[in-house]
Protein backbone atom coordinates (compact mmCIF):
# COMPACT_ATOMS: atom_id res chain seq x y z
CA UNK A 1 0.00 0.00 0.00
CA UNK A 2 0.94 3.62 -0.41
CA UNK A 3 1.60 5.54 2.77
CA UNK A 4 1.93 9.29 3.20
CA UNK A 5 4.44 10.13 5.90
CA UNK A 6 5.81 13.40 7.21
CA UNK A 7 9.35 12.13 7.49
CA UNK A 8 9.78 10.03 4.36
CA UNK A 9 7.18 11.48 2.01
CA UNK A 10 4.97 9.01 0.17
CA UNK A 11 6.34 5.51 0.46
CA UNK A 12 5.25 2.11 -0.73
CA UNK A 13 5.00 -0.54 1.91
CA UNK A 14 4.43 -4.23 1.53
CA UNK A 15 1.22 -5.08 3.40
CA UNK A 16 2.77 -8.30 4.65
CA UNK A 17 5.36 -6.23 6.56
CA UNK A 18 2.79 -4.40 8.66
CA UNK A 19 3.06 -5.13 12.37
CA UNK A 20 -0.23 -5.12 14.27
CA UNK A 21 -0.02 -4.11 17.92
CA UNK A 22 -1.77 -6.42 20.35
CA UNK A 23 -1.12 -3.90 23.11
CA UNK A 24 -0.46 -0.19 22.92
CA UNK A 25 2.68 1.77 22.35
CA UNK A 26 2.10 3.64 25.61
CA UNK A 27 0.71 7.11 25.01
CA UNK A 28 -0.19 6.19 21.41
CA UNK A 29 -3.07 3.86 22.14
CA UNK A 30 -4.92 4.59 18.92
CA UNK A 31 -2.06 3.56 16.67
CA UNK A 32 -2.21 -0.16 16.00
CA UNK A 33 -0.22 -0.69 12.81
CA UNK A 34 3.45 0.02 12.20
CA UNK A 35 6.16 -0.74 9.69
CA UNK A 36 9.89 -0.88 10.25
CA UNK A 37 11.79 1.35 7.90
CA UNK A 38 15.38 0.38 7.46
CA UNK A 39 17.01 3.18 5.51
CA UNK A 40 20.40 1.62 5.45
CA UNK A 41 21.33 -1.98 6.13
CA UNK A 42 24.44 -0.86 7.93
CA UNK A 43 22.50 1.30 10.34
CA UNK A 44 22.09 0.33 13.94
CA UNK A 45 18.96 2.42 14.24
CA UNK A 46 15.74 1.88 12.37
CA UNK A 47 12.51 3.79 12.15
CA UNK A 48 9.17 2.51 13.32
CA UNK A 49 6.60 4.34 11.23
CA UNK A 50 2.92 4.42 12.16
CA UNK A 51 0.68 3.26 9.33
CA UNK A 52 -2.37 4.87 10.96
CA UNK A 53 -0.80 8.31 11.41
CA UNK A 54 1.83 9.39 8.93
CA UNK A 55 3.12 12.04 11.34
CA UNK A 56 4.23 9.55 13.96
CA UNK A 57 7.55 7.76 13.71
CA UNK A 58 9.83 6.40 16.41
CA UNK A 59 13.56 5.81 16.39
CA UNK A 60 14.29 2.22 17.39
CA UNK A 61 17.37 0.09 18.01
CA UNK A 62 18.04 -3.54 18.80
CA UNK A 63 18.58 -3.39 22.57
CA UNK A 64 20.94 -6.38 22.53
CA UNK A 65 23.28 -4.32 20.39
CA UNK A 66 23.62 -1.53 22.92
CA UNK A 67 23.49 -3.45 26.20
CA UNK A 68 25.68 -6.52 26.34
CA UNK A 69 24.13 -8.02 29.45
CA UNK A 70 20.54 -7.50 28.35
CA UNK A 71 18.39 -10.42 29.44
CA UNK A 72 14.73 -9.52 29.10
CA UNK A 73 12.33 -12.03 30.59
CA UNK A 74 8.91 -12.19 29.02
CA UNK A 75 5.93 -13.41 30.96
CA UNK A 76 3.77 -16.29 29.83
CA UNK A 77 0.72 -14.13 29.15
CA UNK A 78 2.67 -11.86 26.79
CA UNK A 79 4.19 -14.84 24.99
CA UNK A 80 0.66 -16.17 24.49
CA UNK A 81 -0.71 -12.80 23.45
CA UNK A 82 1.97 -12.43 20.79
CA UNK A 83 1.63 -16.11 19.79
CA UNK A 84 5.37 -16.60 20.16
CA UNK A 85 6.41 -20.21 19.71
CA UNK A 86 10.09 -19.78 19.13
CA UNK A 87 12.67 -17.22 20.29
CA UNK A 88 14.05 -17.00 16.78
CA UNK A 89 10.85 -15.38 15.53
CA UNK A 90 11.00 -12.65 18.17
CA UNK A 91 12.36 -9.20 17.48
CA UNK A 92 12.97 -6.66 20.21
CA UNK A 93 13.07 -2.94 19.56
CA UNK A 94 14.18 -0.35 22.08
CA UNK A 95 12.59 3.04 21.55
CA UNK A 96 15.35 5.63 21.33
CA UNK A 97 15.27 9.33 21.99
CA UNK A 98 17.76 11.81 20.61
CA UNK A 99 18.29 14.98 22.53
CA UNK A 100 20.24 17.86 21.17
CA UNK A 101 20.83 19.74 24.43
CA UNK A 102 22.77 18.09 25.87
CA UNK A 103 23.61 15.85 22.92
CA UNK A 104 22.73 12.34 23.93
CA UNK A 105 20.83 9.25 22.91
CA UNK A 106 18.80 7.31 25.42
CA UNK A 107 17.06 4.00 24.84
CA UNK A 108 14.14 2.60 26.76
CA UNK A 109 15.42 -0.85 27.73
CA UNK A 110 12.74 -1.28 30.41
CA UNK A 111 9.82 -1.36 28.00
CA UNK A 112 10.91 -2.75 24.62
CA UNK A 113 8.56 -3.35 21.75
CA UNK A 114 8.38 -7.07 21.42
CA UNK A 115 7.46 -8.28 17.94
CA UNK A 116 6.54 -11.73 16.73
CA UNK A 117 8.21 -11.28 13.37
CA UNK A 118 6.63 -14.35 11.79
CA UNK A 119 3.07 -13.30 12.61
CA UNK A 120 3.77 -9.56 12.70
CA UNK A 121 2.26 -9.03 16.14
CA UNK A 122 3.69 -6.58 18.64
CA UNK A 123 3.33 -5.01 22.04
CA UNK A 124 5.30 -2.62 24.21
CA UNK A 125 6.07 -4.70 27.26
CA UNK A 126 7.10 -3.27 30.62
CA UNK A 127 9.66 -5.75 31.96
CA UNK A 128 9.51 -6.75 35.61
CA UNK A 129 13.23 -6.09 36.17
CA UNK A 130 13.26 -2.63 37.72
CA UNK A 131 17.03 -2.28 37.34
CA UNK A 132 16.42 -1.69 33.62
CA UNK A 133 16.24 1.98 32.73
CA UNK A 134 13.62 3.84 30.76
CA UNK A 135 16.41 6.23 29.79
CA UNK A 136 19.46 4.07 29.25
CA UNK A 137 22.19 6.41 28.05
CA UNK A 138 24.45 5.54 25.18
CA UNK A 139 27.98 6.76 25.45
CA UNK A 140 28.63 8.25 22.09
CA UNK A 141 30.23 11.28 20.61
CA UNK A 142 27.58 13.04 18.66
CA UNK A 143 28.59 15.77 16.33
CA UNK A 144 26.18 18.08 14.67
CA UNK A 145 23.23 17.83 16.98
Amino acid sequence: MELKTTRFGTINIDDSHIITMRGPVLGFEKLRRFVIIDRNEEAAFWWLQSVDDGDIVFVVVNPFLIKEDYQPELQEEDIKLLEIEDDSETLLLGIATLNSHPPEITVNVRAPLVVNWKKKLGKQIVLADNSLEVQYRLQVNIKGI
Partner: protein
Amino acid sequence: MLILTRKMGEVITIGDDIKVIVLDIKGRHVRVGVEAPRQTKVYREEIYQMIKDQNQASSQSHFNHIDDILTNFKGIIKST
Protein backbone atom coordinates in the same frame (compact mmCIF):
# COMPACT_ATOMS: atom_id res chain seq x y z
CA MET B 1 -14.13 4.52 41.54
CA LEU B 2 -14.62 2.36 44.59
CA ILE B 3 -13.31 4.11 47.69
CA LEU B 4 -12.58 2.15 50.87
CA THR B 5 -11.25 3.29 54.24
CA ARG B 6 -8.68 0.95 55.76
CA LYS B 7 -6.64 0.97 58.96
CA MET B 8 -3.05 -0.11 59.31
CA GLY B 9 -2.74 -3.87 58.86
CA GLU B 10 -6.07 -4.18 57.08
CA VAL B 11 -6.38 -5.77 53.70
CA ILE B 12 -8.27 -5.29 50.45
CA THR B 13 -8.85 -8.37 48.33
CA ILE B 14 -9.16 -7.99 44.55
CA GLY B 15 -10.50 -11.01 42.75
CA ASP B 16 -9.60 -14.37 44.23
CA ASP B 17 -5.88 -14.03 44.45
CA ILE B 18 -4.77 -10.42 44.86
CA LYS B 19 -4.35 -8.81 48.28
CA VAL B 20 -3.41 -5.22 49.00
CA ILE B 21 -2.20 -4.70 52.56
CA VAL B 22 -1.75 -1.36 54.33
CA LEU B 23 1.56 -1.94 56.12
CA ASP B 24 2.41 1.43 57.56
CA ILE B 25 1.22 5.02 57.56
CA LYS B 26 3.58 7.89 58.34
CA GLY B 27 2.37 11.38 57.65
CA ARG B 28 1.76 11.61 53.91
CA HIS B 29 3.37 8.25 53.15
CA VAL B 30 1.58 4.95 53.03
CA ARG B 31 3.45 1.67 52.69
CA VAL B 32 1.42 -0.84 50.78
CA GLY B 33 2.10 -4.53 50.28
CA VAL B 34 0.72 -6.34 47.26
CA GLU B 35 0.35 -10.09 47.09
CA ALA B 36 -0.46 -11.28 43.61
CA PRO B 37 0.20 -14.24 41.33
CA ARG B 38 3.54 -14.15 39.56
CA GLN B 39 2.00 -13.34 36.19
CA THR B 40 0.21 -10.25 37.53
CA LYS B 41 2.12 -7.09 36.72
CA VAL B 42 2.34 -4.69 39.63
CA TYR B 43 4.08 -1.40 38.90
CA ARG B 44 4.09 2.12 40.23
CA GLU B 45 2.00 4.34 37.98
CA GLU B 46 5.03 6.62 37.43
CA ILE B 47 6.77 3.99 35.30
CA TYR B 48 3.98 4.17 32.74
CA GLN B 49 4.17 7.96 32.71
CA MET B 50 7.94 7.82 32.19
CA ILE B 51 7.51 5.39 29.30
CA LYS B 52 4.80 7.57 27.73
CA ASP B 53 7.05 10.62 28.02
CA GLN B 54 9.93 8.71 26.44
CA ASN B 55 7.74 7.49 23.58
CA GLN B 56 6.54 11.03 23.01
CA ALA B 57 10.11 12.32 22.97
CA SER B 58 11.22 9.61 20.54
CA SER B 59 8.45 10.53 18.13
CA GLN B 60 9.78 14.08 18.18
CA SER B 61 13.43 13.26 17.58
CA HIS B 62 13.20 14.87 14.19
CA PHE B 63 15.93 17.37 13.66
CA ASN B 64 18.26 17.89 10.75
CA HIS B 65 20.98 15.35 10.07
CA ILE B 66 19.27 12.68 12.12
CA ASP B 67 19.62 10.20 9.25
CA ASP B 68 23.36 10.81 9.04
CA ILE B 69 23.78 10.49 12.75
CA LEU B 70 21.82 7.28 12.97
CA THR B 71 23.26 5.59 9.90
CA ASN B 72 26.80 6.30 11.02
CA PHE B 73 26.31 4.74 14.36
CA LYS B 74 27.08 1.10 13.78
CA GLY B 75 30.39 0.20 15.28
CA ILE B 76 30.77 3.24 17.45
CA ILE B 77 28.05 2.40 19.89
CA LYS B 78 29.47 1.75 23.28
CA SER B 79 27.10 1.37 26.15
CA THR B 80 27.80 3.04 29.45
